[in-house]
């Protein structure tokens, strides 16, 4: 993996949206999905996110690594909740419909299962959108997008610089570690923790020192070319908003509004089907 962005360039309507639009949509969509446990809205967002994922022409195998990582996280999250709070659903929904018992406090209830269902739906509603953002946003557009939503350009640019230097630093880390291993520094897991920390310092110290040299060069180069002179700057990779961008942002804003409205109508974050 070269960097956190896994940009896959394929022609699709999602790719054509500007980076700023996608960033705004991601934020609105995530807030919408995170703020409510209303199953009806979550099911709708999940289905829509699957459709969008299909439209983007990103294939599941392109993101299989990230998907399996998130799947593990989701399962772990659910298991831990059940282990530590098996009756959380009962507390939330106020009724108890036991199905079977695992002994002690561990009674599986309909309420608990329903709570877990909502939790899983939240993952399903958000993960495809996060992946879409990561895979369809050109990293070059990212800093410009941050700047557009109000982040100061000096800060936004540091994100871009990090993306620029991550591959170089990875390469340098690899080279330093090879040269140090030849001097007898053991990097294997066989060593105990203290020895491994010492070994790590034999690689990290040279890496930090040579990165400091890099920083001096880059900051001189940036200043010599006028970085920080004006309060604003333009971005080569920035594109003007098209009608589709406004439509996408409006729809996502609508979802957030719906989420908030449902929370108010439900009298809380939870939609309760057990009392009707």
């Amino acid at each position, binding site marked *: 993996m070269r960097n956190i962005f896994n940009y896959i360039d394929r022609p699709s309507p999602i790719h054509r949206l500007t980076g700023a639009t996608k960033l705004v949509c991601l934020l609105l969509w995530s807030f919408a999905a995170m703020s409510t446990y209303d199953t009806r809205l979550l099911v709708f967002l999940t289905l829509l996110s699957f459709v969008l994922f299909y439209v983007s022409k990103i294939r599941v195998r392109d993101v299989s690594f990230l998907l399996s990582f998130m799947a593990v996280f989701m399962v772990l999250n659910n298991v831990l909740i059940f282990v530590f709070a098996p009756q959380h659903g009962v507390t939330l929904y106020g009724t108890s419909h036991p199905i079977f018992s695992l002994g002690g406090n561990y009674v599986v209830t309909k309420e608990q299962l329903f709570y877990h269902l909502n939790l899983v739906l939240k993952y399903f509603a958000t993960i495809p959108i996060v992946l879409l953002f990561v895979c369809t946003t050109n990293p070059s557009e990212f800093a410009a997008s941050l700047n557009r939503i109000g982040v100061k350009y000096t800060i936004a640019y540091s994100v*871009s610089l990090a993306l620029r230097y991550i591959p170089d630093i990875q390469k*340098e880390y690899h080279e*330093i570690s090879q040269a*140090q291993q*030849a001097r007898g520094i053991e990097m294997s897991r066989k060593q105990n923790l203290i020895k491994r920390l010492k070994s790590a310092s034999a690689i990290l110290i*040279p890496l930090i020192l040579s990165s400091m040299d890099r920083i001096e060069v880059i900051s001189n180069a940036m200043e*010599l*070319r006028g970085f920080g002179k*004006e309060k604003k700057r333009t971005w*080569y990779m920035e594109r003007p908003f098209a009608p589709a961008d406004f439509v996408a942002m409006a729809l996502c804003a609508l979802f957030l509004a719906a989420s908030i409205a449902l929370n108010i109508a439900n009298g809380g974050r939870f939609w309760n089907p057990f009392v009707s």
Partner: protein
Amino acid sequence: MDEPIIAFHDFGFQYNAQAEPTLHHIDLEIRKGEKVLIVGPSGCGKSTLAHCMNGLIPFSYRGESTGSVTVRGKETKALNLFEISRTVGTVLQDSDGQFIGLTVAEDIAFALENNCVRDPELHARVDKAAQAVGIESHLRHAPGELSGGQKQRVALAGVMVDDVDLLLFDEPLANLDPATGKSAMELIDEIHTRTGAAIVIIEHRLEDVLHRDVDRIVLMCAGRILADLPPDALLSSDLLRDNGIREPLYLTALRYAGVTVTPEMLPHSIRTVRLTEKEKGMVQSWFHSMPPHAVEETRPLLLDAQHVTFSYANGHRALEDVSVYVRKGELIAIVGTNGAGKSTFSKVVCGFEKEQEGRIEFTGCDWGTLSLKERADHVGYVMQNPNQMLSKPMIFDEVALGLRTRGVAEEEIKTRVEDTLRVCGLWPFRKWPVSALSYGQKKRVTIASILVLEPEMIILDEPTAGQDYRHYTEIMEFLRKLNRDGITVVMITHDMHLMLEYAERSVVFSDGHVIANDTSAGVLTDPDVIARANLKETSLYDLALACGIAEPREFVQRFIDHEREVARA
């Protein structure tokens, strides 16, 4: 007459952190359309002078200044860094480090973006600058996909977008192979003619810069300007040699032959230099008076790599059926362009990477079963930048590191480290912290930290990169001394002087293959190999032809042999 773009009048400068001034009584003017070369040994103040031109002094590096320095008639102190950068565009030495954008186009656009230039002007000006340096077909490429020469073109385009009046190049040849360096000088010359911008080049590789004409050469030493002369006048004086600057090799050869170099001879380039029949005769008789090159007896094989093939995980085939041998006690060079496979080959030998096919033998034993650490007891690897290897604050501990990880008793470590420090000339510094050392001394510490493991052979990646002639000579004479003491030395390089002067033999890589294995004089007089490996033929070859010598290769060889004699004396 135009007002000068930059003018120094009785200017002096002292950094806040230093006890002595770095520049004294500088008087220098650069006018529109001029092309000026500034040369001088390391520490002479030429980089400081460059910082004063582009505004890094006084705005990024603090210090006390005296006298005046003006840009377009205004004192730099009264301007700011950004205003100066609209007039003076700087291309820094490290064309990789100054690459700011994620892609070529963004990097070129950087200055325009900071000036809030909007589309469509923004895209149009980027396209124009990219075309001016011939990089327009790579606009979407990331820095990792470009060669050193291409990165330099991007850096140049990045300052040219602003239509500056003066282009300042800080050591433009430092990271380029000889052929790319040659085309870089041609590109600078072309831009000079086309845009009429003044050009200032700071570089110590005089002969390579003079591949294209310059108007004046400014010679600096110890913070002062010693000479500000047209090239022909400077080259026919003794000033360069007396101040640690290497003169062009053909002039050294002429001097050996007893020819007096005069400005009328037009000595600034091997293409222009005019010799009378009498002078040609002097070169010929010098050639015949030199002893023929003695062929050394064949020594036993140390490393023998046969038919090695290696591909990286991404499928890139870096080595294809490569066979290389190294004899005991040799000092050889492995040369070739970036990506030709020379670094990969050394990684395979050290065990950093595992060959897919082929066999490597070391002193006759199969090398395949040995681990990286076991191989390191026989072959040491020294990285290009010493900062990439130094991890301990004290010199002693740094050198002792490899022994400590091998569990050697502390008593023995002490004697072995001390012996190594003596051999490496670091004995006076044994109690010093590493951070107090100069770059060249740090390089020695890294070599010492490898030598202490008592390897039979050491591989050095670009041992002299970024060093001026004096430090270069210091490092190389040190390696030659180690070599005479019995250590086999393999250098990965694209420095032709280094090949020619120090390596008995050169192995040339191109595109994953070995395309030549010959004496360095042989390689550098073979037009086919030179073209394929991005080398440049040595001017000695042209001099031999110009003087009607039928065996130019032998001429080059005898010149080198003589140089070594002179160096030893």
